[in-house]
């Protein structure tokens, strides 16, 4: 069914849900053909649950339960396909919108809630085997790309790739957006990756908007073509086609694991929602563009495919219920969260003991405690501020001599 159009885009699943691989998809089809019916149903389940969760989190932000929410609506196809294409031993470096990938790698989505409620700057431990090497969100645009390349250099130095062992050979995938593609760090990450021939894939979710700035301001050529300038393969995919995302990522990660060097994927997708809950996209984009992308939705597309394959309504009901249950669970748990202990501010600034952390944690504890004492003390009790400077000293250094 290949189209002879010269179109560089890899697409397997057309927007109407029909399987119609594009010309460029041919070399990736063996990876798609490995998928079982259960694999494909799992793709649908993950995309649907994460979208329901995303809606729930948006509501929680509106209700004041979250400081901020970062919607992923519309990008589920790019995320779910590529996440399932990774192997347990691979390392994933996300930006900050990769909720579906977090879930697939084993992160409790409640940990995302903790981050965006303002309880932590991290949220989960990438070293915990449960989270299967899913690293922390990074908010400075593009910074994580260098960490990913450094990590991949470590895989190379350790010889943990290209041994031919599919169960242990490792690779890295790093996610960033069309806006990040302009950042110097992303450029440097690709330079270092090419220089060291690291085992890694750069995955750009081109959702067409960097807050209010269209991708045309970032680049005058499709982003995947930049890969050529670094000397690595670049592949453009229909990012709302979960099959294309799976098959291309699986192939390029395999190539990386086998020592064929780094590569880049540009997933053409769209941010249906706002940049974050603080953003108003009606200020900068029009309804017709939005509707054209809603017509290419990754979930309705796969639903049409599955229904055509004869999947029963019961399955779709079950998935909808799972999403609702997941969201209800988040709602129930959020009301029980307690604020962090103030002393935790000082606990992990350094790994080794540090005198300022010890002094200031002690000072804060005394200061906080002094309010309790003051309530029952006489009016001539010293105020905390008057003593703060000398209290901060580790010893009485003569100021009171």
């Amino acid at each position, binding site marked *: 069914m290949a189209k002879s159009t010269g179109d560089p885009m890899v697409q397997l699943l057309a927007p109407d849900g029909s399987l119609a691989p594009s010309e460029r998809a041919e070399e990736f089809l063996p990876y798609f053909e490995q998928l079982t019916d259960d694999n494909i149903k799992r793709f649908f389940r993950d995309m649907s649950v994460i979208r329901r969760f995303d809606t729930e989190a948006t509501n929680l932000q509106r209700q004041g339960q979250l400081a901020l929410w970062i919607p992923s609506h519309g990008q589920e196809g790019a995320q779910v396909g590529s996440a399932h294409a990774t192997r347990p031993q691979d390392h994933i470096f996300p930006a900050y919108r990769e909720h579906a990938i977090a879930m697939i790698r084993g992160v409790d989505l409640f940990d995302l809630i903790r981050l965006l409620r303002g309880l932590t700057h*991290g949220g989960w431990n990438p070293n915990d085997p449960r989270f299967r090497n899913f690293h922390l969100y990074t908010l400075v645009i593009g910074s994580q790309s*260098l960490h990913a390349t450094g990590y991949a250099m470590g895989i190379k130095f350790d010889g943990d790739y290209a041994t031919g062992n599919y169960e242990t050979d490792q690779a890295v995938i790093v996610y960033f957006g069309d806006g990040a593609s302009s950042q110097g760090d992303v450029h440097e990450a690709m330079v270092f990756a090419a220089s060291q021939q690291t085992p890694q894939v750069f995955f750009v979710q081109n959702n067409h908007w960097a807050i209010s700035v269209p991708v045309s301001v970032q680049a005058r050529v499709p982003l995947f073509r930049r890969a050529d300038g670094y000397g690595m393969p670049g592949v453009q995919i229909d990012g709302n086609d979960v099959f294309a995302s799976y098959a291309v990522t699986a192939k390029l990660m395999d190539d990386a694991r086998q020592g064929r060097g780094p590569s880049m994927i540009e997933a053409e997708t769209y941010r249906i929602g706002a940049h974050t809950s603080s953003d108003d996209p009606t200020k900068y984009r029009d309804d017709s563009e939005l509707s054209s992308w809603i017509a290419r939705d990754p979930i309705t597309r796969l639903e049409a495919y599955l229904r055509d394959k004869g999947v029963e309504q019961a399955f779709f009901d079950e998935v909808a219920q799972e999403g609702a249950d997941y969201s209800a669970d988040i709602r129930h748990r959020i009301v029980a969260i307690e604020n962090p202990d103030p002393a935790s501010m000082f606990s992990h600034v350094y790994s080794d003991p540090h005198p300022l952390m010890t002094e200031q944690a002690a000072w804060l504890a005394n200061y906080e405690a002094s309010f309790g004492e003051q309530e029952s003390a006489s009016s001539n009790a010293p105020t905390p501020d008057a003593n703060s400077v000398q209290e901060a000293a580790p010893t009485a250094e003569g100021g009171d001599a």
Partner: protein
Amino acid sequence: MGMGKAINEGLRRALAEDPKVLLMGEDIGTLGGVFRVTEGLKSEFGGDRVIDSPLAESGIVGTAIGLAMRGYRTVCEIQFDGFIYPAFDQITSQLAKLTNRHEGHMSFPVVIRVPYGGHIGAVEHHQESNEAYFAHTPGLRLVSPSTPHDAYWMIQEAIASNDPVMFFEPKSRYWPKGDVDTSHNSTPLHASRVVRTGADVTLLGHGAMVSVLLQAAEIAAEEGTDVEVIDLRSISPIDYAPILESVRKTGRLVIAQEAPGNVSVGSEIAATVTERAFYFLSAPVLRVSGFDVPFPPAKLEAIFLPDADRVLDAVDRVLSY
């Protein structure tokens, strides 16, 4: 040996003792670094451990962070002080904050070597003392040796630290020779140290300034003033105990630094000493600093940099109170 050779020996020992130690930077491999501090190390340990990186400072620090996540201890070389700013985000927003962001689940033992400071007559961006930017950032540790012996040991202690350490090397001290005892070290990484005892005035500085202070102390002694000199050694955290003990004895403190004085490390020390030892001070704490101008062209550097005369001028002023 000189400080450059001492650091070379310290790096060699660290590379030999721990296979997870890597060196990365511009021209550090085949060439051995523009100051030859890493000379011979690539041929001894190979190009995967002594890495000639692409010419990109943010890339050097950012990839060192990723390597740390895999258990590597990378020593990055920033070729000159004034070339560090492209890496500012990776140092201050990433490296410095990542242990905290990971809530202690990961450590980031990255060392950033920075040849810094003046006295070598170089062109713009090659003679700056920019340690205050980084001393202001929680999560980083900063040290600066003043002698070859300290440099030999401090570079190894910095590599062994589980936290990021910025290792400021006073580049004008790479060549003057000093004794290095490679079998024994007595001063911890983050300790300041009295290097000359005296009763009348305390002089405090770090890096190349220590030799200027010792020179000033010699001249003052000829004039009958008994000067104590303290080598700060650790810029963050600052080890205040020897400083306060000295000030309680002399009642007078002069802090000398090559950096511009406005919002500088010397400013912080002056404030803290005033807070903690106010009643022991016989005079205000004075700072002798570079001027608050861009580091000037080489033909003016002798005017810009604090020398023994400018230090002695401050000594005279604190004694006149």
